């Protein structure tokens, strides 16, 4: 099957972001003082466990970012291949069964029948109102009532078994690498990991990995033949929607930061460094901006863009491109309204730094302002930038959910946690209740935000010089003290 790669606006920015992160990581490897802080992040058990979960989210998000348009197989065999209007991501292709297996309406998780009665024509004439069998969910079962539990158990068991195998492989290879690096025997390293006395908390990582893999393995094995999180009003698989929402959440969290960083960094540092009228101007700017209610500004902008897009449909070849642009504008407007906090922090820090004696020494050498800012000030405020961006991430993911719920968020065709919640809210009042859509959105968002927060805590602890943690009461001095007291 031939296809044409499609790079949407947000995709391009994600690629830029990945490149920036790779360059940053390379820089960190070269600089001992940066590496030391990151090592402290690596020594935090909760941080590393959270990172393990985040990696899964990020991989899913990245898979969902690589977009392409498959060719349409048309009969005429012309010289030109036509490409479909539907833009698909790698994730969509991998999850084709999930995407295509659409029921008619709601069905509960692991159900074999619809959640609503329908009038069914009997073969011998006549009609009956009953819960019809699902077209895909559990369609392979002859006698659903009797076989369902057993079939689920077997499939889940097989999936978990494969996951366990994979886990053993990963654990063994990581242990081997660690052992090789430290020049120890494999078994010795394994036992230190098992007792949890390695500097990098591998035990926590492995335990988290085991949990995630077991859950993921079982889910993968089941999702082909069941709707493991049920289906929504139009019969779409909720599990698939949850997976698709991850990218939207990650994008809002990261791209917004990318948008606000230039403002915050340049304006904050300039205000603190130059003082005087520059400082006054920038202060008035952000004071004004932060006194306008954020939601109001966002709603106004989003509505304006919406109108513009609707009146100019010719600008977009596909629905995806349109939805994507709207997402990008949402990131931009969120960024514009949220740079003031960081800017204020950076201004304060720069005010402190500019009085430092090494800045004065640079003045005494006649170093230009631009060089002082780029070489002396910005590297010394980077820890604040890092802490703030990581801390802001989870807040932005939640903000997206709220905005989409209110209706000024992403395009309705974009699947996001906010749109999922919005769609599910009316059904909460229904009897019997449709709970799974909300549950799915909630648990995915919870896992993402919690792990982001835990990771942010670890980063903050490692980079904030005032929060230097004490070492746990380690064995060496205990021994000495016992010896002395005896």
């Amino acid at each position, binding site marked *: 099957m031939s296809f044409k790669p499609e790079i949407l606006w947000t995709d391009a920015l994600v690629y830029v972001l990945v490149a920036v992160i790779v360059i940053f990581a390379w820089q960190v490897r070269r*600089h*001992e*003082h940066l590496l030391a802080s990151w090592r402290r992040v690596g020594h935090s058990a909760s941080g590393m466990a959270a990172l393990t979960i985040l990696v899964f989210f990020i991989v899913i998000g990245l898979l969902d970012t690589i977009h392409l348009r498959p060719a349409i197989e048309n009969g005429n065999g012309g010289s030109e291949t036509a490409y479909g209007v539907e833009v698909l991501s790698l994730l969509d292709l991998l999850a084709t069964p999930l995407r295509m297996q659409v029921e008619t309406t709601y069905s509960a998780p692991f159900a074999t029948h619809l959640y609503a009665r329908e009038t069914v024509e009997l073969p011998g004439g006549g009609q009956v109102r009953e819960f019809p069998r699902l077209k895909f969910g559990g369609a392979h079962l002859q006698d659903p009532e009797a076989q369902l539990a057993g079939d689920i158990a077997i499939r889940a068991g097989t999936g978990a078994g494969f996951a366990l195998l994979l886990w053993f492989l990963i654990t063994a290879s990581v242990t081997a690498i660690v052992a090789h690096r430290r020049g120890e025997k494999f078994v010795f390293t394994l036992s230190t990991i098992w007792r949890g006395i390695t500097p990098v908390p591998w035990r926590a990582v492995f335990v988290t990995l085991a949990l995630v893999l077991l859950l993921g393995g079982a889910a993968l094995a089941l999702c082909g033949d069941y709707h493991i999180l049920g289906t929504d009003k139009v019969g779409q698989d909720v599990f698939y929607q949850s997976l698709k929402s991850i990218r939207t959440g990650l994008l809002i969290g990261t791209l917004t930061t990318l948008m606000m960083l230039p403002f915050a960094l340049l304006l904050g540092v300039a205000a603190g460094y130059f003082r005087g009228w520059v400082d006054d101007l920038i202060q008035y700017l952000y004071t004004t901006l932060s006194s306008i209610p954020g939601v109001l500004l966002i709603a106004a902008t989003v509505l304006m863009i919406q109108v513009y897009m609707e009146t100019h449909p010719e600008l977009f070849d596909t629905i995806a491109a349109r939805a994507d642009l709207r997402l990008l504008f949402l990131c931009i407007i969120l960024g514009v309204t949220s740079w003031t906090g960081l800017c204020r922090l950076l201004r304060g820090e720069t005010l402190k730094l500019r009085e*430092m*004696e*090494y800045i*004065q*020494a*640079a*003045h*005494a*050498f*006649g*170093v*230009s302002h631009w*060089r002082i800012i780029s*070489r*002396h000030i910005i*590297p*010394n405020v980077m820890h604040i930038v890092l802490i703030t961006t990581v801390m802001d991430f989870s807040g932005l993911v939640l903000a997206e959910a709220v905005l989409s719920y209110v209706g000024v968020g992403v395009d309705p065709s974009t699947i996001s946690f906010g749109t999922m919640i919005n769609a599910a809210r009316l059904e909460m009042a229904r009897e019997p209740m449709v709970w799974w859509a909300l549950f799915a959105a909630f648990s995915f968002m919870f896992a993402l935000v919690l792990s982001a927060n835990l990771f942010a805590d670890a980063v903050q602890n490692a980079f904030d010089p005032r929060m230097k943690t*004490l*070492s746990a*009461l*380690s064995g*060496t*001095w205990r021994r000495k*003290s016992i010896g*002395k*007291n005896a």
Partner: protein
Amino acid sequence: MSSVLEIKNLETVLHSEPRPVWAVDGLTLQILKGETFALLGESGCGKSITALSIMRLLPEAGEIMGGSVCLGDQDLLLLPETAMRNVRGKRIGMIFQEPMLSLNPVMTVAQQIGEVLQRHFDLRGQAVEKRIVQILDQVGIPDAANRMNEYPFQFSGGMKQRMMIAMALAGEPELLIADEPTTALDVTIQAQVLELMRGLQQQGGMAILLITHDLGVASEMAHRVGIMYAGEIVEMASREAFFRGPAHPYSRKLLAALPGRDRRRQGHRLDAIRGNVPSLSREFVGCRFADRCDHAWELCHQVAPGWTALTGEQQVRCHLFDQNSGSRIVKPPVSGQTAAPATLDAESREFESSPAAGAEQSAPDGSLLSVTDLKVYFPIHKGLMRRVAGYVKAVDGISLRIDRGTTLALVGESGCGKTTAGKAMLQLIPPTAGNVRYNGVELVGLERHRLRSLRSEFQLIFQDPYSSLNPRMRIVDIIEEGMNALGIKDGGKEHEEKKVDRLLESVGLPAETKWRYPHEFSGGQRQRIAIARALAVNPKLIVCDEPTSALDVSVQAQILNLLRELQRNLGLAYLFITHNISVVEYIADEIAVMYLGRIVERGMVDEVLDSPRHPYTQALLSAVPVIELESKRKVIRLHGDLPSPANPPQGCHFHPRCSHVMPVCRKNYPAASIFSSTHTAHCYLYPQDEEQSDRKTQA
């Protein structure tokens, strides 16, 4: 007399990455009633941790691992925390180093002292107030009944330290722990506070544990002295015995490292101790000082020395005294053996032959830098429209001259404007008025790019070696920054790297250190790097802004040696800004004494120090603590503090604190009185220079 405090084998550990630090390791001492015991040593030797261990106020990471601390007959380490609270503030009082940080800014003084009285004496209402007034009178706060309801910010630094003492005294303690009580204060204020502490001790008979790094303060205050090194006491002696003949090689080195005029006259280098205090996280085998000791032999590296009693009053922990106990080795301390191999080889002498050098370019009067009537005023903005309501006259018309290859010391208390003056001379702060001529070129109002081309001629070394190097830059980048910014490029990249190596070697650091980051170096090493950075652009003049005041005595000696050596070899001129008179005595050729933005006395170092004319100079010099066994000098007490430079007193700035004040002093600022071609002072006690006073009255 009975002992108030008895510490036996105290061991305190700070749990830190990557290994625990044995900050105090087997410390034993006792303090008698009415006695002052001075615990002396360099920073990082565990002095403050000892004090905190006694109070059981260790930071979270600290833990007392063993030993006993007996106050009277009660072991404090066995008390429960609730009982300990009855001891703190009641039986033991403590004074901290930083009076600005030790008082709560949102509570009045009366509230803070009252807290102690309520807690320990259960006093209420009138009784509390009466007692507070009594205590404040005792520590010499004028108008105590009114001032007790003021907040800490309404008091000056010296007053705040008195408040701290008042709070410590409120519980009528048996033992007062003073942790560097005067380090943050100026010498004149220090003299006041020390006198107060002495007086209070004589009245109340309490014991004082004085923690200090200043040998002068110890010699003035202490009855007995303990020298602490790397977590243990290495020598204990009575004050007389110690200052007459210190026994331990470390003690002798400490005394020999003190700068002073005698050493300069003898042309000696200062006797610096090589290396640094060892990290206390390692295990020690043998004597802890062995690595830095000139007399160490194999035994010192293998066996830790025990106590040897020399006389009844002097004990020492050193193998030198083991074999023939009591007999002191008479070998004088070997001088000239220092860590700084600051000998510049022939190759590095090329700094000297840089184009700007040579007499042919010098100004007609031969001076390198001449400053006339320099003024720096900072506007005070008030109100909504930020209109200028007044000026802080930080520098108010100073004139001075520095000749090639000489050192001018600018001396004064903190807040007198000496740092501002130094920065204004280098055009880092724009001067309000006046002229600064460098080599005949007027610097004030020079265009930015022309000034930049002159920047390499004059450089700056700062006080705090921790904030003067960018923590995010490697040493090589730090040193090359100046060269790149000023476009000093002789040869390619390789040549530049070689130059960095040579610079580092010339300040006594190995060349491979250039790839490291500042945090890997100690304070003294950082100061060397800062000096190398300044030297990188071949300056002719260096403004040294208190370059040694953040350093320990032994490291200070290393840096002073280095600066003198560089001056000799490269012909540098220094403007040395300091408040430390003994450093001035050692390094300066000329002195200018500054008071509230003006220079009150100027002259050659011998003229000013031997026969100070201005009452302020006299008071300043008399307040410096000195080590002498028979205290014969009289401290001239100055009343009050430095007035605010925003509102200097009418007439002579010094008249409110002067003991010789005359009516004329309150009216006009005195003109210069000339004593010799180099020595002048501004005081009405001496005949005025006619010509100048005419001009003054006209103006």
